[in-house]
């Protein structure tokens, strides 16, 4: 099992760096994972996306489609990429502690 080490903490992740145990997730973990996705600091706008993705996942057990994510957060796709340079699937979902999406976002 690959691990990810950030600032002295070690997490079990899959090959693509997604957190294995969703129960471990909290805001501190999100901040640490954000660093591995090229995000220097989590702003309010980052949290808006992360919380939306996480709540959607907790409710429906699947990541939202990109279009829905843009509509519901009011952010254009370009804005999402500005916030999460690796994109909504790899970036936002990873920071939100979701398991690897299967081609939705």
């Amino acid at each position, binding site marked *: 099992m690959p691990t990810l080490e950030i600032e002295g903490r070690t997490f079990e992740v899959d090959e693509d760096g997604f957190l294995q145990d969703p129960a471990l997730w909290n805001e501190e973990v999100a901040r640490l994972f954000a660093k591995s996705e090229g995000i220097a600091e989590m702003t309010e706008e980052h949290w808006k996306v992360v919380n939306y993705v996480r709540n959607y996942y907790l409710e429906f057990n699947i990541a939202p*489609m990109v279009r829905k994510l843009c509509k519901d957060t009011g952010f254009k796709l370009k804005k999402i990429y500005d916030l999460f340079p690796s*994109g909504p699937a790899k970036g936002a979902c990873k920071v939100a502690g979701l398991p*690897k999406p299967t081609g939705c976002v």
Partner: protein
Amino acid sequence: MGKHKTPMLDELEKGPWPSFVSDIKQQAEKGKQALKDAPDDLLGVMELSYKDKVTHWKHGGIVGVFGYGGGVIGRYCDQPEKFPGVAHFHTMRVNQPASKFYSTKFLRDLCNLWERYGSGLTNMHGSTGDIIFLGTTTDNLERVFYDMTHELNQDLGGSGSNLRTPSCCVGLARCEWACYDTEEACHELTMEYQDELHRPAFPYKFKFKFDGCPNGCVAAIARADMSVIGTWKDDIRIDQAAVKAYVGGEIKPNGGAHAGKDWGKFDIVEEVVRLCPTGCMSWDGSTLKINNRECTRCMHCLNVMPRALRPGTETGASILFGAKAPILEGAQLSTLTIPFIRMEPPFEELKELVNKVWDWWMEEGKNRERLGELIQRESFQKFLEIMELSPDPRMVSEPRSNPYIFWKEEEVEGGWTRDIKDFRAKHQR
């Protein structure tokens, strides 16, 4: 002798044909690639798959480069200890130049780049048209991307639920049948839709393909959600003297493509006139006549006698929508939607069509539903409504025997509620 024993793969090297197994072995021997063991371990894992009759690649993976959501496909081997060289074996799609024109220097530079960061193995080209780089690790992705974009001025292609790399036939560059500039159209739309190409937000994949004429060298009609196929409005141009030269044997049919075997004397009636699918041609021994109103642009006569017959001069394209391979439903061809459109830069009319289609599909399409499947689910009438088009006999495959029209209530005088007795009193059957 490679790292692994591969008796089954070795069978694929026998016979007179080129072999991908030999190609991979050649790269292993050459040994210049950054991922030293990748070619050997690729053969090893493939041999194991042949033995186990099951793939040893895991399902998908999410890797990529910053700023893009597509273009890189994650691949991981499920036997990484046995085959460490292909433990990570990500694919990168590189947007091919229009019509795949290369200088040898460019090809060498591409291969050197890939040996510097990957397995050295490529696939020229993938079925969508991209140059495919096979096999590298997550760490190397940004390095390849940086050098490729900065040194080679080349971009990644599409993957996932986005606009896939548009592709076109050789077009006006080399082909006398091209009815519009396929390269210009392909390039223009690629540049216009960079966002859609690199940042997936569609329900599923979407492909543009540009064929210069109905011969369809990139098979747009079979593979593209939007197929743009060159055509002409006026009459096929006939050079009667050249027709006679074909009949007399001075010019070889099909540009001499049937050399190597004696097929006997060219017979214009058997080989051209009687093969016309609509029977719109005749030959009286000295003049070839074509009833152009009946021509369905099958291209057969033009292909057989290219020096005698040429497409008309009023050229443009037909636009068809909805082709796809079998995934949810069976395979289907694109359906003719716009019989004729002028194809001149900057292709504004074409872009308007694209935007209308995408607005609808992105709103109504289910996850992983291709445009063709949405049209099937919601009906072609609905599609025409969205496109703001009126039905046309040319959209129906056999309009003379199958003139099917569904009327809507508002199109019928009195709607569904009018009294039939009243109506019959005035109009007898």
